C-alpha cells in the first residue's frame, strides 16, 4: 500500500486577489515577528526601537525622505531596464556594467564638454551618450546570443568586469588631484551637467525621468506588439519562430532597450545624484534590481513599491548603525529575512497545502 503523506500539495487553479494580498501581508507580518525574535536574541534590544530607528533613518526628516526617494528612483530605473530582458528569459546580470558605461559616458561629456555648450544642450548630450553607451553594452551579448547562442549569463557578467576596468582606466585621466584615484565632484563651481532643480526640488528631474519610464515600460510590455513578442520568445523560442516572430531581431532589440535604460540609470546617478564617477557608482544596485524585477513579476508599478521597500531598509540601516552601533549588516539580516518570507509566500499563492484526507 502506498503511504499517504501527512501534508498534500496541489496546484491552485486560481486564487482571488484578496486572498493573494492576504497571504503576502501575513508573510510580511510573520517576517517582522521573526526579525524581532532574532534582534532580541542576538543583541538583546527592543525590536520596536530598532524598527523605529529604521523608520527614522528612511523618513525621519525632509532630507532623508528625499534621499530615500532619490535612491528608490535609481533602483527602480535599473529594474525597469532589466524587466524586458528577464521577461524574454534573457538573463541580463550585466546591469552593473551597463550602468557604469552609461555613467562613464555622462561623466566624459561633463568633463570634456562642460564649458563648451549651453547647459540644456549638455544635459541632452549626456542623456543620449549614456543611453547609447548602455545600449552598446547590452547589445554585445545579445548579438552573440542571437547568432551563436552564447551563454548570456556568463557574457553579461563578464562585461561587468570589463566595464569596471574601463572606468578604472578613465579615472587615471580624470582623477583630481593626480594620483589620488578619485575624480571628486565634477564641475563643482559651474554645476555644468548637473540636473537642475524641478519644482524647487533638487531631485525633481530624477523622479520625473524615472516615472515616465515606469509608465511607458508598463504600456510597452503589456499592450504593445513588441511586448507580446517578448513574452512569446520568453515562453518558447520555437513557438515564437512558428508564429513568424523573428527571434534574433527581438533578442537584439530588447537588449538594446534594456541596456539603454540601464545606461540612463547611470546618467541619473552621475548627473542627478553623485556628480562623480568611480567603480562603485553602480554599487551592486544592478544585482539588487534583479530581485526587484522578479518580485514584481515585471509590473513596473509594483517595482516602484518593491524598490521603495528595499531602499527604505537600506537607509534605515545607516540609522541603526549610527544610533545603536549595530553594524550595517544587521539590516541585511532583517532584509534577508523579509525577502525570504515574501518569496516563500509565492509558493503558497501557487500551491494549496492541505492535511491529507484518510
Amino acid at each position, binding site marked *: 500500500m502506498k503511504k499517504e503523506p501527512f501534508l498534500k500539495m496541489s496546484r491552485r487553479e486560481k486564487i482571488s486577489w484578496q486572498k493573494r494580498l492576504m497571504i503576502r501581508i501575513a508573510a510580511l507580518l510573520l517576517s517582522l515577528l521573526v526579525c524581532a525574535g532574532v534582534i532580541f536574541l542576538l543583541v538583546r534590544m527592543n525590536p520596536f526601537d530598532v524598527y523605529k530607528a529604521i523608520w527614522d533613518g528612511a523618513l525621519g*526628516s525632509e*532630507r*532623508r525622505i528625499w534621499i530615500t526617494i532619490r535612491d528608490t528612483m535609481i533602483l527602480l530605473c535599473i529594474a525597469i531596464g532589466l524587466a524586458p530582458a528577464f521577461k524574454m528569459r534573457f538573463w541580463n546580470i550585466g546591469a552593473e556594467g551597463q550602468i557604469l558605461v552609461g555613467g562613464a559616458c555622462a561623466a566624459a561629456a561633463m568633463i570634456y564638454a562642460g564649458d563648451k555648450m549651453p547647459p540644456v544642450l549638455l544635459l541632452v548630450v549626456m542623456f543620449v551618450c549614456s543611453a547609447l553607451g548602455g545600449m552598446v553594452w547590452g547589445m554585445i551579448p545579445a548579438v552573440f546570443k542571437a547568432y551563436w547562442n552564447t551563454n548570456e549569463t556568463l557574457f553579461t557578467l563578464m562585461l561587468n568586469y570589463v566595464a569596471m576596468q574601463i572606468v578604472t582606466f578613465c579615472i587615471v585621466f580624470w582623477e583630481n588631484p593626480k*594620483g589620488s584615484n*578619485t575624480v571628486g565632484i565634477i564641475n*563643482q563651481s559651474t554645476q555644468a551637467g548637473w540636473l537642475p532643480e524641478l519644482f524647487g526640488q533638487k531631485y525633481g528631474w530624477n523622479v520625473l525621468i524615472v516615472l515616465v519610464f515606469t509608465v511607458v515600460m508598463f504600456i510597452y510590455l503589456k499592450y504593445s506588439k513588441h511586448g507580446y513578442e517578448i513574452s512569446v520568445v520568453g515562453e518558447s523560442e520555437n513557438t515564437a519562430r512558428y508564429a513568424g516572430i523573428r527571434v534574433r531581431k527581438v533578442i537584439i532589440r530588447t537588449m538594446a532597450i534594456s541596456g539603454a535604460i540601464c545606461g540612463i540609470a547611470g546618467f541619473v546617478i552621475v548627473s542627478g545624484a553623485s556628480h562623480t564617477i*568611480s567603480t562603485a557608482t553602480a554599487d551592486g544596485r544592478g544585482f539588487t534590481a534583479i530581485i526587484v524585477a522578479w518580485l514584481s513579476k515585471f509590473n513596473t508599478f509594483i517595482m516602484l513599491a518593491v524598490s521603495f521597500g528595499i531602499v527604505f531598509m537600506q537607509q534605515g540601516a545607516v540609522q541603526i*548603525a549610527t544610533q545603536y552601533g549595530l553594524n*550595517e549588516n544587521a539590516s541585511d539580516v532583517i532584509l534577508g529575512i523579509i525577502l525570504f518570507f515574501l518569496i516563500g509566500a509565492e509558493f503558497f499563492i501557487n500551491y494549496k497545502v492541505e492535511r491529507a484526507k484518510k
Partner: protein
Amino acid sequence: MKKALAVGLAAAMAVSMTAPVYAEGEGVAKEDLKIGIIYIGDENEGYSAAHMAGIDEMVKNLGLEDSQVIEKTLIGENEACYDAAADLADQGCQIVFANSFGHETYILEAAGEYPEVQFCHATGTQAKASGLENMHNYFTNIYESRYVSGVVAGLKLNEMIEAGELTEDKAKMGYVGAFPYAEVISGYTSFYLGAKSVCPSVTMEVKYTNSWASFDLEKECADALISDGCVLISQHADTTGAPTACEAAGVPCVGYNIDMTSVAPNTALTSASIDWGVYYTYAVQSMIDGTPIDVDWCKGFSEGADKLTPLNENAVAEGTEEKVKEVEDSIIDGSLHVFDTSTFTVDGEEVTTYEKDGTEYVSDGYFHESEYASAPAFDLAIDGITSIVE
C-alpha cells in the same frame, strides 16, 4: 510671486531660528555640543579605528557624554558623504569631521550650504583655497614618525649586515604603497631617509596596490617585493596584509596605524602611527572656547600627535630604544629636520628650490613639509628609491 516670497522668508526665518548658535568669540556650552563624524570604514578597518580611538579620547578628555557624538560609518566617497554631512548638520551638530581623502569635495559642498557649522576634513588640501571660513583641513606630521620608524628599520638592517645575513649592497627595503601621490611619496621618502641616516648603503623599491585597504593586494605586493630581493618591508596601506606575508617569509617589517605584532609576532618591528585624539580634543575645545579652528592644522611628535607603537623586543636590533629616543628628542627640539636637503639628492643634484601653489618649500637647508598646508607636499623622486608604477 508675493506669496512665494512670503513662504521663502518664513522658511528662512525658521532656518535661522533653529540654526545652532555659533559665533566668533562666544563658544558653545559643553552640554549643548553635538559632534558628527563621517568614517570611510568601521571598527574593522585600521585607519578608521584609529580615528574612532581619537574621538573616544576627545570625549574622555573634555568630559562629554557619548550621546553627544554621532558617528556614521562605512560612508563612501560619493553622494553618500554629502548626504551624511548634511544629515549631521540637520541633526544639530555644530562641528562635523570626515576622515577620508575622497570625502573632501562633498564636505566642501556641505560647508557651502551650512555656513554656521564647522567642517573639518582629514588629509585634505582644499580648505584654504576654498575661502570658506567654516572649512578646515587637518593632518599630522606623520613623516616624523615614519622617519623614526625608518631609523628602527635601518638599525635592523645594520644588525643583519653585522650578522653576515646580507652584504651592504644587498640592503634593499620594500615598500607597499597605496597610490602614487604626495601623501604616500612623502611618507616613504621620510621612512627611507630615516633608514639611510643609520644605514647609508640602503636602497628601496616601492610598489603600489592602488587601493587604501586591500588585504590580498597588500599581501601579494609584499610577497612580490620579497621575491625581488627586499630584506625588510614597510607599508602605507591600511590592512595587515604586508605583515602577514612578512611573518610567513620571516622578513622584518614596519607597519602603519596599528601595532602589527598580533599578526607578525616575530617580524614586526614597530608601526608609525597617529594619535588623532590630539586634534579632536583641540578642535572641539576651540568650539567650547569660541576660538577659530586652524584652516590647516598639522602637529607632530612635540604635541604627541605622532608616535611609534611599542617596539617589539622579539625583533628589533639591540640599542634601538636608546636611538629612537635620541632621534625623537632631536626632532622635537628642532635640531633634526626630516627633509634635510643635504641628506638626499634628486638625479644626483641637491635640491635647492621647490615651489608648489606659489609657495617656496625649501629654505634654511630643509624642505618645510606640512608647514604651509596640512596635507603632505613632498613628491620628489629621490635617488636610492625605485618607484614601480604599474
